[in-house]
């Protein structure tokens, strides 16, 4: 067995290390039980950590929402002031943040499901540990030392596997949360750099790293159409844009603009 075999061997090696620490069966039983209780505490703590991390991500997503509104306003202001380049930059940043927000939303929902599954697993594990406690008293009373050792190992392995099962589920949830947090942090940097305190400072300035990154994100056509829409709303017309863009893309987006207005995320 390849995949299954590797997992089995890893877990068995870890379990036997724990069981080997105690010498007589009675001691093994008590030691295993004590370890199980400690693990249960760890599982509980792990679930709490996942919940906390999830909440933090939700807060970050709220901030993204605010940053998007701010960038939208700034794009309008820039356009009113005739600074189309600046408006474009703001809209590109808004678009990048929006994309991230959608992805985060999906992942937060997934995390929520995993969290529910973890809570259910913890309950199941608690029941198993309780069964082990009952069983260990029976084994102590009924069997000779040699036979008790065998039965204890069996029972402890059963519980240990359940622990490993929950442990792995928890680890995966934690890994996922950390990955998401790193992404959210990166987007927050975009926001910090992307919301302009002073519109006049950036208008004619050069491109920074973030500008280049945003351009690479390829949100061009969406930004174009949004820009056209804003122009239409502000009554500046689309003639200057057509000159600037000099492309069919801009014109095509402009035609679709009223329809896209209802679903900017599409």
């Amino acid at each position, binding site marked *: *067995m390849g*995949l*299954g075999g590797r997992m089995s061997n*890893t877990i068995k090696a870890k379990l036997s290390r724990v069981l080997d620490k105690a010498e007589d069966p009675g001691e093994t039983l008590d030691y295993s039980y004590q370890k199980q209780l400690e693990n249960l505490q760890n599982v509980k703590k792990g679930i709490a950590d996942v919940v906390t991390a999830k909440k933090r991500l939700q807060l970050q997503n709220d901030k993204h929402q605010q940053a998007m509104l701010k960038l939208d306003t700034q794009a309008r202001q820039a356009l009113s002031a005739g600074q189309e380049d600046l408006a474009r930059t703001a809209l590109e940043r808004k678009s990048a943040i929006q994309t991230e927000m959608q992805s985060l939303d999906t992942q937060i929902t997934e995390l929520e499901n995993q969290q529910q599954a973890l809570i259910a697993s913890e309950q199941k594990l608690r029941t198993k540990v309780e069964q082990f406690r009952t069983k260990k008293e029976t084994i102590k009373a009924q069997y000779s030392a040699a036979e008790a050792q065998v039965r204890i190992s069996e029972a402890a*392995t059963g519980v240990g*596997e359940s*622990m*490993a099962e929950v*442990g792995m589920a928890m680890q995966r949830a934690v890994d996922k949360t950390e990955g998401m947090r790193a992404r959210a942090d990166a987007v927050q940097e975009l926001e910090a750099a992307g919301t302009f305190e002073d519109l006049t400072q950036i208008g004619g300035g050069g491109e920074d790293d973030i500008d280049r990154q945003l351009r690479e994100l390829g949100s061009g056509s969406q930004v174009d159409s949004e820009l056209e829409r804003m122009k239409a709303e502000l009554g500046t017309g689309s003639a200057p844009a057509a000159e600037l863009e000099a492309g069919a893309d801009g014109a095509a987006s402009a035609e679709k603009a009223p329809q896209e207005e209802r679903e900017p995320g599409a």
Partner: protein
Amino acid sequence: MIVRIFNDRQYRLDEHHYEPLNVIDDAVVAAVDAGDEQQYRAKFDELLAFVREHGVPVGDEDLIGSDVLLPPDDFSFAEAGQEFTGDGLVPDPADA
């Protein structure tokens, strides 16, 4: 033979099922080695389906160890790759 599928339960399989199970498992490993994600998905799903089809569920109240442990259904191709190359994905069950 007792097989545990993570995030599911334990199943009891007859000894004669070991060989066909092993064949599917080898195909899973080969797909990971070959970097063939589609084949990995197909074979891994087949592996779990085989256990569920031929195995008899072990009661929740039974405290027994398994002969084989299998990862959960949503075990990704990337995770399977890690399982073979790195230290493995399974965290310490007892000294955690």
